[in-house]
């Protein structure tokens, strides 16, 4: 069964450094998402992406964050200058369509630790 993959599984970085989290969505999916879960807190929506542009973003997704689909397979989340509070599990998801009738398929997550 096709699945969403994410690399790396764990990333450790120093405060102020840039990080890029990578995701390979399911190949025929058209909508892509990032969510994050700070330890002990809820999974939170960050951003959705369709047709090479952001379709929706949350208040968390400020100028420090950006997303890109650099080629036909990868979907990346970049954090320009990491802060301690960016430490979290980041989940990528993809779906074929938009709306409740279309399941979002999640990857296993990347644990980001900012020291």
């Amino acid at each position, binding site marked *: 069964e096709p699945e969403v993959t994410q690399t790396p599984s764990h990333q450790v970085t120093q405060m102020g450094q840039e990080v890029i989290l990578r995701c390979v969505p399911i190949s025929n999916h058209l909508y892509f998402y990032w969510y994050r879960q700070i330890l002990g807190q809820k*999974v939170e*929506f960050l951003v959705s992406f369709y047709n090479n542009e952001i379709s*929706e973003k949350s208040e968390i997704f400020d100028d420090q964050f950006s997303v890109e689909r650099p080629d036909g397979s990868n979907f990346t989340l970049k954090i320009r200058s990491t802060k301690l509070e960016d430490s979290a599990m980041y989940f990528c*998801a993809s779906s074929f369509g938009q*709306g*409740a*009738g279309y399941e979002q*398929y999640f*990857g296993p997550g990347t644990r980001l630790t900012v020291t």
Partner: protein
Amino acid sequence: AQSVTQLDSHVSVSEGTPVLLRCNYSSSYSPSLFWYVQHPNKGLQLLLKYTSAATLVKGINGFEAEFKKSETSFHLTKPSAHMSDAAEYFCVVSDTDTGTASKLTFGTGTRLQVTL
């Protein structure tokens, strides 16, 4: 604004006994509701979804959930727990309004422990 409240952070059951994981929702529009499961070091997997069709929804691995609008609830049940059911379960809501239909709002999760 939409939200879900999972009433129990941790539930422990014996193998072979029923499972009940509780969820209440709040939504400005007609909600779509989901239950996702996360096993250790795995991604979030969809168990079942409600999208305004039948109020009793059957999912994978013997789980089911009933949408009760009058109680704003969407509790997850299973008649007989199995050791492999031990995992974290998330109740999730999505408003069917087009503008926010892509955004999922998660509950805080319920950790299900299954003992022998």
